[in-house]
Protein backbone atom coordinates (compact mmCIF):
# COMPACT_ATOMS: atom_id res chain seq x y z
CA UNK A 1 0.00 0.00 0.00
CA UNK A 2 1.23 3.47 -0.81
CA UNK A 3 1.32 6.18 1.82
CA UNK A 4 -1.76 7.88 0.32
CA UNK A 5 -3.71 4.62 0.29
CA UNK A 6 -2.90 4.05 3.96
CA UNK A 7 -4.12 7.52 4.85
CA UNK A 8 -7.31 7.13 2.80
CA UNK A 9 -7.90 3.77 4.42
CA UNK A 10 -7.64 5.33 7.88
CA UNK A 11 -10.03 8.16 6.96
CA UNK A 12 -12.56 5.72 5.53
CA UNK A 13 -12.35 3.38 8.50
CA UNK A 14 -12.37 5.96 11.27
CA UNK A 15 -15.44 7.90 10.05
CA UNK A 16 -18.93 6.43 9.67
CA UNK A 17 -19.73 8.80 6.82
CA UNK A 18 -16.96 10.53 4.91
CA UNK A 19 -17.12 12.55 1.72
CA UNK A 20 -14.01 13.22 -0.34
CA UNK A 21 -14.82 16.47 -2.09
CA UNK A 22 -13.50 19.63 -3.71
CA UNK A 23 -13.66 22.40 -1.13
CA UNK A 24 -15.37 22.28 2.24
CA UNK A 25 -18.93 21.65 3.38
CA UNK A 26 -19.36 25.42 3.81
CA UNK A 27 -17.62 26.32 0.57
CA UNK A 28 -17.79 23.53 -2.00
CA UNK A 29 -15.63 24.30 -5.03
CA UNK A 30 -17.53 22.28 -7.59
CA UNK A 31 -21.18 21.75 -8.46
CA UNK A 32 -21.01 17.98 -7.94
CA UNK A 33 -19.45 18.32 -4.49
CA UNK A 34 -22.03 20.96 -3.63
CA UNK A 35 -24.84 18.61 -4.60
CA UNK A 36 -23.36 15.79 -2.49
CA UNK A 37 -23.23 18.09 0.56
CA UNK A 38 -26.81 19.22 -0.02
CA UNK A 39 -27.94 15.58 0.03
CA UNK A 40 -26.01 14.76 3.22
CA UNK A 41 -27.34 17.88 4.95
CA UNK A 42 -30.84 16.96 3.90
CA UNK A 43 -30.42 13.46 5.34
CA UNK A 44 -29.33 15.01 8.63
CA UNK A 45 -26.51 12.56 9.33
CA UNK A 46 -23.19 13.42 10.89
CA UNK A 47 -20.38 13.34 8.33
CA UNK A 48 -16.74 14.24 7.80
CA UNK A 49 -15.35 15.82 4.66
CA UNK A 50 -11.88 15.66 3.15
CA UNK A 51 -10.92 18.50 0.82
CA UNK A 52 -8.88 16.88 -1.96
CA UNK A 53 -7.85 20.30 -3.28
CA UNK A 54 -5.69 20.65 -0.15
CA UNK A 55 -3.96 17.33 -0.69
CA UNK A 56 -2.67 16.28 -4.12
CA UNK A 57 -1.73 12.79 -2.91
CA UNK A 58 -5.21 12.02 -1.67
CA UNK A 59 -6.76 13.63 -4.76
CA UNK A 60 -4.92 11.14 -6.99
CA UNK A 61 -4.98 8.25 -4.53
CA UNK A 62 -8.73 8.29 -3.98
CA UNK A 63 -9.35 7.66 -7.69
CA UNK A 64 -7.38 4.44 -7.58
CA UNK A 65 -8.69 3.47 -4.16
CA UNK A 66 -12.18 2.65 -5.43
CA UNK A 67 -11.42 2.56 -9.16
CA UNK A 68 -13.60 5.65 -9.50
CA UNK A 69 -12.33 8.52 -11.66
CA UNK A 70 -14.23 11.44 -10.19
CA UNK A 71 -14.76 13.44 -7.01
CA UNK A 72 -16.89 13.65 -4.84
CA UNK A 73 -16.87 10.12 -3.41
CA UNK A 74 -19.01 8.96 -0.51
CA UNK A 75 -18.03 6.22 1.95
CA UNK A 76 -20.32 4.81 4.61
CA UNK A 77 -18.88 2.55 7.32
CA UNK A 78 -15.83 1.81 5.24
CA UNK A 79 -17.72 1.02 2.07
CA UNK A 80 -17.68 3.01 -1.17
CA UNK A 81 -21.20 4.14 -2.06
CA UNK A 82 -20.67 6.24 -5.17
CA UNK A 83 -20.36 9.75 -6.58
CA UNK A 84 -22.92 12.54 -6.56
CA UNK A 85 -25.07 11.09 -9.38
CA UNK A 86 -25.43 7.79 -7.55
CA UNK A 87 -26.11 9.62 -4.30
CA UNK A 88 -28.90 11.57 -6.01
CA UNK A 89 -30.41 8.47 -7.66
CA UNK A 90 -30.28 6.57 -4.37
CA UNK A 91 -31.67 9.51 -2.43
CA UNK A 92 -34.61 9.89 -4.79
CA UNK A 93 -35.32 6.16 -4.58
CA UNK A 94 -35.11 6.23 -0.76
CA UNK A 95 -32.15 3.82 -0.92
CA UNK A 96 -29.63 6.13 0.67
CA UNK A 97 -31.89 6.67 3.68
CA UNK A 98 -32.28 2.89 3.89
CA UNK A 99 -28.54 2.27 3.64
CA UNK A 100 -27.83 4.73 6.47
CA UNK A 101 -30.55 3.17 8.60
CA UNK A 102 -29.31 -0.37 7.88
CA UNK A 103 -25.78 0.60 8.83
CA UNK A 104 -27.05 2.41 11.93
CA UNK A 105 -25.44 5.72 11.13
CA UNK A 106 -26.11 8.33 13.77
CA UNK A 107 -28.04 11.52 13.03
CA UNK A 108 -26.13 14.77 13.23
CA UNK A 109 -25.92 16.00 16.82
Amino acid at each position, binding site marked *: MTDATTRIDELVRSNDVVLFMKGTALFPQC*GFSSRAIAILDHLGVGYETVDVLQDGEIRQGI*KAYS*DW*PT*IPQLYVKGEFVG*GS*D*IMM*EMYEAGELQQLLADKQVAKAG
Partner: protein
Amino acid sequence: MAMAAGEIEALILQGIPDARVEITDLAGDGDHYAARVVAESFRGLPRVRQHQKVYEALGGRMGGALHALQLTTSTPD
Protein backbone atom coordinates in the same frame (compact mmCIF):
# COMPACT_ATOMS: atom_id res chain seq x y z
CA MET B 1 -10.10 20.47 -23.07
CA ALA B 2 -13.63 19.79 -24.18
CA MET B 3 -15.17 16.82 -25.96
CA ALA B 4 -17.94 16.72 -28.55
CA ALA B 5 -21.19 15.03 -27.58
CA GLY B 6 -20.90 12.67 -30.57
CA GLU B 7 -17.46 11.57 -29.44
CA ILE B 8 -18.75 10.69 -25.96
CA GLU B 9 -21.65 8.74 -27.42
CA ALA B 10 -19.37 6.85 -29.82
CA LEU B 11 -16.98 5.85 -27.02
CA ILE B 12 -19.80 4.60 -24.79
CA LEU B 13 -21.31 2.59 -27.65
CA GLN B 14 -17.93 1.10 -28.46
CA GLY B 15 -17.53 -0.10 -24.86
CA ILE B 16 -21.18 -1.06 -24.29
CA PRO B 17 -22.57 -2.12 -27.67
CA ASP B 18 -26.11 -2.81 -26.39
CA ALA B 19 -26.47 0.65 -24.86
CA ARG B 20 -28.93 3.36 -25.73
CA VAL B 21 -27.18 6.65 -25.13
CA GLU B 22 -28.65 10.11 -24.75
CA ILE B 23 -26.26 13.03 -24.33
CA THR B 24 -27.36 16.51 -23.26
CA ASP B 25 -25.01 19.47 -23.40
CA LEU B 26 -25.98 21.13 -20.12
CA ALA B 27 -24.20 24.45 -20.41
CA GLY B 28 -23.71 24.70 -24.17
CA ASP B 29 -19.97 24.95 -23.61
CA GLY B 30 -18.94 21.47 -24.76
CA ASP B 31 -17.70 20.71 -21.24
CA HIS B 32 -20.70 19.96 -19.06
CA TYR B 33 -22.78 17.03 -20.19
CA ALA B 34 -25.48 14.76 -18.91
CA ALA B 35 -25.52 11.20 -20.21
CA ARG B 36 -28.32 8.74 -19.88
CA VAL B 37 -27.20 5.19 -20.63
CA VAL B 38 -29.70 2.35 -20.82
CA ALA B 39 -28.35 -1.15 -21.40
CA GLU B 40 -29.61 -4.68 -20.97
CA SER B 41 -26.09 -5.71 -19.96
CA PHE B 42 -26.46 -3.54 -16.82
CA ARG B 43 -29.12 -5.87 -15.47
CA GLY B 44 -28.21 -7.31 -12.09
CA LEU B 45 -25.26 -4.95 -11.62
CA PRO B 46 -25.19 -2.50 -8.71
CA ARG B 47 -25.23 1.19 -9.71
CA VAL B 48 -21.56 1.63 -8.92
CA ARG B 49 -20.66 -1.13 -11.40
CA GLN B 50 -22.98 0.33 -14.06
CA HIS B 51 -21.27 3.69 -13.76
CA GLN B 52 -17.85 2.04 -13.75
CA LYS B 53 -18.69 0.35 -17.04
CA VAL B 54 -19.43 3.73 -18.60
CA TYR B 55 -16.23 5.19 -17.16
CA GLU B 56 -14.29 2.22 -18.53
CA ALA B 57 -15.80 2.84 -21.97
CA LEU B 58 -14.63 6.45 -21.75
CA GLY B 59 -11.13 5.09 -21.22
CA GLY B 60 -9.66 7.41 -18.61
CA ARG B 61 -11.07 10.62 -20.11
CA MET B 62 -13.44 11.00 -17.21
CA GLY B 63 -12.03 13.52 -14.78
CA GLY B 64 -9.54 14.57 -17.46
CA ALA B 65 -10.69 15.71 -20.92
CA LEU B 66 -14.21 15.24 -19.70
CA HIS B 67 -14.68 17.27 -16.56
CA ALA B 68 -18.37 17.16 -15.94
CA LEU B 69 -20.57 14.29 -16.95
CA GLN B 70 -23.74 13.83 -14.98
CA LEU B 71 -24.47 10.16 -15.39
CA THR B 72 -27.68 8.19 -15.09
CA THR B 73 -27.74 4.47 -15.85
CA SER B 74 -30.59 2.00 -16.03
CA THR B 75 -31.84 -1.16 -17.69
CA PRO B 76 -34.60 -1.26 -20.32
CA ASP B 77 -38.13 -1.63 -18.91
